[in-house]
């Protein structure tokens, strides 16, 4: 496969961050995820695509145990983060979520100031011993989220007063403030205009140098633009998982082909 951006897109196949084996998810009697095996690489953007209800968000939520909060939801199988079983009884989900951060579809800043939104996580995880350290963490996080220039003069104004795109970047700043190793993004751009979308995509590309990013998106073009690896889900199955350039030029599976070319919904 001759990928013109081969060098930029080259990924180290050995560096596996998350390894999932035979994952099943049930909502009551509904078998939502069927036997999914996947290795997610470090310092790579992995896109999950697929029609609504295919299980991509459900699977994403398994990766930081967000499904624990749903009573009728049952997860089976092994998910290892750096070789450790995240569903082990000894793993504290709160600690896990500090390592595996998440950004949601709709920007959901806390009804607090911009500063407090970002400082919240580092505070509860005791990452700063004094105000100066906390200031630095907040500034760094806002810079990483490309929001510092716009927000530095209004840090004590409510986060909810920002525009939609800024709010989403604030949520990303909040997620990166706890220095996660993996960042999960569930349709982070679906509520944003094209400019804000480009900014978030640019940010995702930068975050890739330090984190493993997993993004669920309905926009095939977005998956093609930002990711190095793409996974296609359909009816709870992981149908195809591979290099993004390959998936979008010559996928192996006919269902993938049908979906990305707009033939099945």
């Amino acid at each position, binding site marked *: 496969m001759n990928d013109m951006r081969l060098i930029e897109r080259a990924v180290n196949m050995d560096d596996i961050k998350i390894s999932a084996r035979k994952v099943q998810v049930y909502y009551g009697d509904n078998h939502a995820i069927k036997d999914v095996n996947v290795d997610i690489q470090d310092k790579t953007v992995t896109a999950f695509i697929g029609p609504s209800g295919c299980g991509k968000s459900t699977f994403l939520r398994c990766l930081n145990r967000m499904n624990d909060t749903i009573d009728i939801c049952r997860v089976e199988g092994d998910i290892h983060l750096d070789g450790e079983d995240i569903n082990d009884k000894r793993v504290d989900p709160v600690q896990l979520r500090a390592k595996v951060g998440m950004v949601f579809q709709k920007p959901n800043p806390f009804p607090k100031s911009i500063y407090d939104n970002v400082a919240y996580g580092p505070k509860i995880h005791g990452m700063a011993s004094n105000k100066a350290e906390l200031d630095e963490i907040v500034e760094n996080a806002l810079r990483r989220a490309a929001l510092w220039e716009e927000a530095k003069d209004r840090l004590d104004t409510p986060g909810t007063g920002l525009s939609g795109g800024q709010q989403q970047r604030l949520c990303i700043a909040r997620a990166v403030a706890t220095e996660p190793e993996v960042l999960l993004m569930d349709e982070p751009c679906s509520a944003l205009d094209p400019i804000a979308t480009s900014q978030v995509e640019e940010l995702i590309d930068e975050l890739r140098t330090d984190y493993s990013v997993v993004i669920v998106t309905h926009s*095939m*073009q977005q998956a*093609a633009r930002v990711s190095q690896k793409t996974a296609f889900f359909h009816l709870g199955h992981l149908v195809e998982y591979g290099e993004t350039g390959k998936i*979008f*030029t*010559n*996928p192996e599976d*006919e269902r993938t*082909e*049908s979906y*990305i*070319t*707009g*033939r*099945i*919904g």
Partner: protein
Amino acid sequence: MNQEHISSAFDRDLEAIQALMVKMGGLVEAAILDGAKAVTTRDIELAEKVRKGDAAIDELEERINEETARTIALRAPVSSDLRVVLSVLKLAASLERIGDYARNLAKRTEVLADQRPISGPDKALKRMSKEVQRMLKDTLDAYVRRDVELAEDVRQRDEEVDEMYNALFREFLTFMMEDPRNITACMHLHFIAKNVERMGDLVTNMAEQVVYVVTGEMPDDTRPKSDETAFISGET
């Protein structure tokens, strides 16, 4: 992929650009046959028709360029759809080149009509042109039917065209050595033979595009090649 898109307008766009390309192919097939016929029968009227007909071929290529650019911009095709769009663009470019060679055949008819007749090579030239036209027809059929086997067959057949060209090359050398007054006609006839041989190469490239459209990969370069004229000297 024979399933239809959810967006039927996308299907119509893809069908439209492919139809334009196939139509262009039909015109080019006719240009090859007419060009060869004009040359071998020294028919100046037919030659004029071929020269004028090339404008229609060029126009179609322009339209294909515009329509494919539009489809890429508006539909952002991926995978097999992208291959269709890219292949139409490349096939149209090859067809345009073949059309130019056919026009060149026609152009040389006038000069040849004034030269002393060399009748021997005419039959071979006609046969060679006919074979290239058949290869083109099969390539277009293979494209429409997404028939990789037929496309592979076309690729293999280019060797025969190369062999016909080699034989003609030797024949022209002989004629020229026999009598220097044959040189002008033979030079023109040689260019004609070379142009037909080049048409065959372009058709072969087109057949490779058909394989690419269907499989997503260009075929391996195992095609036999037989143009030996670079190693033939007049002394043999």
